[in-house]
């Protein structure tokens, strides 16, 4: 089947198998910043924003995302023009192997859109769908706090 997807602000017409997940469609069309981890909705490496809500793209059939707004971590910012969340993560050392980072960035963005000044407990709850095997989460939480601070000041 063919569907029109709006990914990171641009429209794409993509042919895909009706059984495909959004994760498969994104990765097979160059959006490899969306990582494939567990493929069963546990690790959060494949998190994207679907019409503004964070979802695991491995748990979403691509056929149900047709015509919707999809934002990946690259849609928030890239190496040349990083988003304050991405900058904060890099600065505090919240990135080690980096595999989980795009998912954490998306979940952090979703949190800070809804709650610009989260407590540590609120941060932990908001990131409950993202797993990191390297950092132990301390630096990630620090990164979220720094990003929140900067986004408040910069009104991103």
């Amino acid at each position, binding site marked *: *089947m063919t569907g029109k997807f709006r990914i990171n602000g641009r429209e794409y017409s993509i042919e895909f*198998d*009706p*059984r495909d*997940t959004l994760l498969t469609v994104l990765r097979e069309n160059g959006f490899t910043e969306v990582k494939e981890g567990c*493929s069963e*909705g*546990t690790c*959060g490496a494949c*998190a994207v924003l679907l019409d503004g*809500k*964070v*979802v*695991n793209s*491995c*748990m*979403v*059939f691509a*056929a*149900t995302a047709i015509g919707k707004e999809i934002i990946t971590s690259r849609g928030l910012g890239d190496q040349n023009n990083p988003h304050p969340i991405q900058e904060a993560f890099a600065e505090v050392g919240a990135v080690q192997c980096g595999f989980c980072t795009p998912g954490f960035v998306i*979940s952090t963005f*979703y949190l800070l859109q809804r709650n610009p000044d989260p407590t540590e407990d609120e941060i932990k*709850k*908001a*990131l*409950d*769908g993202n797993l990191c095997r390297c950092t132990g989460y301390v630096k990630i939480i620090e990164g979220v706090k720094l990003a929140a601070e900067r986004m408040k000041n910069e009104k991103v």
Partner: protein
Amino acid sequence: MEEFRWYYPNSIEEAVGLLELQGVVPHGGGTGIIRGKLDRYKGLISLEGLGLDYIKEVDGVVEIGATATYHDVIEFCGAVCGECILVKSLSRAASTPLRNRITIGGSVAYFPIWSDLMGPLIALDATVSILGKNEGEYPVQELARNRSLKSHSLIKSLKFKRFNGFTYYYRAARTHFDYGSFNITMLASFDDGVFSDVRFVLVGSKAKFQRLAEIENGLIGRAPSDVDVPGLIGELYNSIEFHNTRIGSAEYTKSVALVEIERAIYASFKAMEGEK
């Protein structure tokens, strides 16, 4: 491989008509559909765009459309009643991204025992409105008992009377994100220092969904000082059984469950004390 199709009905009537097709099932959030076993289906009916994602309260009766997500329910109920039972239970379910996808209708259709929805719904005496072959309004427990009710049928919504009293929810799991081994729901109302209404549900035992009448009858009409809690727990010892669970052996799980049931009772005593 046989062709697999998506259907995008424009009305509930059209969706109900599509249920006649063999091997075609409704799709709400899609989290209950096992991707590796998709070949068992010939197609999926997208329920999006049918306006079933509503939540409303009219005259104290809450109605939740089938495609409202756990996140939607937490937001709505949180704004209306703060710490009500569905806010407590659904906030424990899965994770933030999954709560944005898991639908109420899907959970009721699949009825997994690890779901954090079923205990509260049974305690709330919720009813499920079904369209299609088995059209009608059924108590949620009947749907749990009789799974054939959902065959060629579409869950439209569920309804329950808003509960304003004491609420308690406990979920036994190894970690926050783990599947729950069992959960307990307690709703209670107090009147002049005695229990006027108690609803106690255990989910995950061998009976799957169990209203604990021993506890309910042992509390209703009594003041905390008149309740023999160890006696009640003792009575329960022979009426609840578990299989081995993720948290441990059947016997261990039962011990944990009895302790947690006792804690729920004492929490209700404390709440009643606070009300005074």
